[in-house]
């Protein structure tokens, strides 16, 4: 994939997703702009309920029932996903953009053999699916004795192998973009490392762009080129991994880093007080206000836009006023 200009494979602008519930609308995504270029790995980091999965699912047109995209546009390789018919969307899924889910146990069909499930993806897109092709696909993701595995049911494989099968299916139509929604959260740490190695190798060898959704900052720091930190349905900070983690600008990013045990004795954890914002309520001003250690009354008055600081995007009223170097997280980063 040696192209001089890297084209944009995913462009999200002003995305808003809302779930209609009995208690009124829950605004899961409140204006997200994202772009991913060919060969890039973007990490979407945040706690549960921050809208990271809803963003991914909207790209695939897979938002579950009460959820709806209420504003914004999504372009995948130039195609406007929101304007596509169901049939066009179906041909886009799998062939141009593929998804790897969190729990391989529940995303593989337990009643069908691995071979049949792999075939389905290929036949739907009108691609040839001989035994040889399936075997090669399984080999590519590092599954030992692929001929035998084709005849297995999912329960006969371990969690790590199931996730490899999911990745093989996702790769089968050579997509340009892989959306990975917490692909290693259900796996053990040694298996997690194997799966991340595999995804990294796919990215390097084929230039496939990857969007990795994770709650684990450490995984993102090892794996991604760029990360976007989400809070309450918005991106609060976005930049290259090294910059964001070495010198976090948004108080929420700083807080997240301070929450993580760092393999250093005697460094106390500094939790973020309170709970994640309730998205069914109307949030005025900054959504992080109730938990922010640096809040001021002004933070509540107007919603804050993402500010471009040159190397980084930050959504904070106080950006530029404070001495951010004081955080312990920033100090000891990189000294390990």
């Amino acid at each position: 994939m040696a192209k001089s200009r890297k084209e944009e494979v995913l462009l999200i602008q002003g995305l808003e997703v809302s779930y209609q519930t009995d208690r009124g609308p829950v605004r899961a995504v409140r204006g997200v702009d994202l772009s991913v270029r060919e060969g890039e790995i973007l990490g979407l980091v945040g706690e549960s309920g921050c809208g990271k999965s809803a963003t991914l699912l909207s790209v695939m047109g897979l938002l579950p029932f009460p959820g709806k995209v209420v504003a914004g546009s999504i372009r995948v390789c130039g195609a406007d996903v929101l304007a596509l018919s169901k049939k066009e969307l179906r041909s886009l899924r799998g062939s141009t953009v593929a998804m790897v889910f969190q729990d391989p146990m529940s995303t593989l069909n337990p009643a069908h053999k691995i071979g049949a499930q792999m075939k389905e993806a290929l036949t739907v897109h009108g691609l040839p699916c001989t035994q040889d092709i399936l075997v090669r696909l399984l080999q590519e993701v590092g599954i030992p004795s692929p001929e035998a595995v084709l005849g297995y049911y999912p329960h006969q494989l371990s969690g790590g192998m199931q996730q490899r099968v999911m990745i093989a299916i996702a790769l089968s139509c050579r997509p340009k973009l892989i959306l990975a929604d917490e692909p290693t959260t259900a796996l053990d740490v040694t298996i997690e490392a194997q799966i991340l190695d595999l995804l990294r190798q796919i990215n390097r060898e084929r230039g496939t762009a990857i969007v990795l959704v994770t709650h684990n900052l450490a995984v993102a720091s090892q794996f991604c080129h760029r990360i976007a930190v989400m809070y309450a349905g918005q991106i609060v900070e976005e930049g290259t991994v090294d910059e964001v983690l070495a010198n976090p600008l948004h108080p929420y990013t700083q807080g997240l880093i301070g929450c993580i045990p760092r393999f250093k004795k005697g460094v106390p954890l500094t939790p973020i007080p309170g709970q994640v914002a309730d998205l069914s309520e109307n949030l005025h001003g900054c959504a992080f206000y109730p938990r922010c250690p640096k809040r001021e009354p002004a933070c509540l008055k107007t919603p804050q836009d993402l500010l471009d600081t040159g190397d980084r995007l930050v959504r904070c009223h106080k950006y530029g006023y404070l001495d951010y170097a004081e955080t312990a997280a920033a100090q000891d980063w990189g000294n390990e």
Partner: protein
Amino acid sequence: MEAAFSMKDNLPLVQTVGLKRYFYAKPGFLARVLTGQKERTTKAVDGIDLLIREGETLGLVGESGCGKSTLGRVIVGLYPPTAGQVFYEGRPEPGGQMIFQNPYASLNPRHTVGQILGFCLEKRGVPLEDRESESVRLLERVGLTALHLDQYPRQFSGGQRQRIGVARALAMQPRFIVADEPVSALDVSVQAQILNLLEGLQEEMGVSFLLISHDLAVVHHMSHRVAVMYLGKIVETGSTESLFENPAHPYTRALLSAIPRLGKTKSARIRLQGAVPSAVDPPPGCRFQTRCPQRKDICGEIEPPPVAVKGDPGHVVWCHLRA
């Protein structure tokens, strides 16, 4: 190794000797007759000697299915042991309280917080008129208030529920608590709140913890000593500093090198092949031999003996390579 521990330190509070817990699965009549399936024995915990002193946190790490939760449950008496003995406060009986992983499943949804705590206080023998004030005291200790007494678990967030779980464990005034993945169901920012709460309890009341976790960063942060478990056996144990800085067992090393660390650039990694074998039919000799990058012939034949690791008197590894 016990002799090395008792130098000047606190007394042992919990001790297990040759603890085993097997699970038996008997296939149905048809399966036995038609497919010839035999009774299967899962050796979840297979001969474990542990020692936890007063005011100490022992971290127990391992991958899923290695038996760490089963071990915790046998120690507090939720499962009877198949063989071996648990000593609690010097008596040959299990004891201690438990904090469970999933705060959504471990609290009865039909009981108010006051009732949940009330049951424990009744069991402890607190007279009826004192139970409410005692419950409030417990709630305040874990960062909740008297207003929460009449609420049901569903009215709380995950972090608050885990606080209730901690309060429930404290209601019995235990000196030892098994915390089985206490934060893995919680969000990162809430995890730190609960970890700090547990640390504070230990400082204040001197409770000992057996902290079961697959998250090595959490274990490193919380524990004085660490034991690494693989397929029902302890493969390495030692002080946290010694074990993390000088891991001796190939499995511990692979485990440590697999942890994604914040900001750490990609150093040399040891990648294990395959997954953990089944505990139904564990490999003979060393349990880790099927995945060990440094396997020798002897590993397939004889169970490795405990070997002391230089530098730390409590650091012991079960590995032929060190013998």
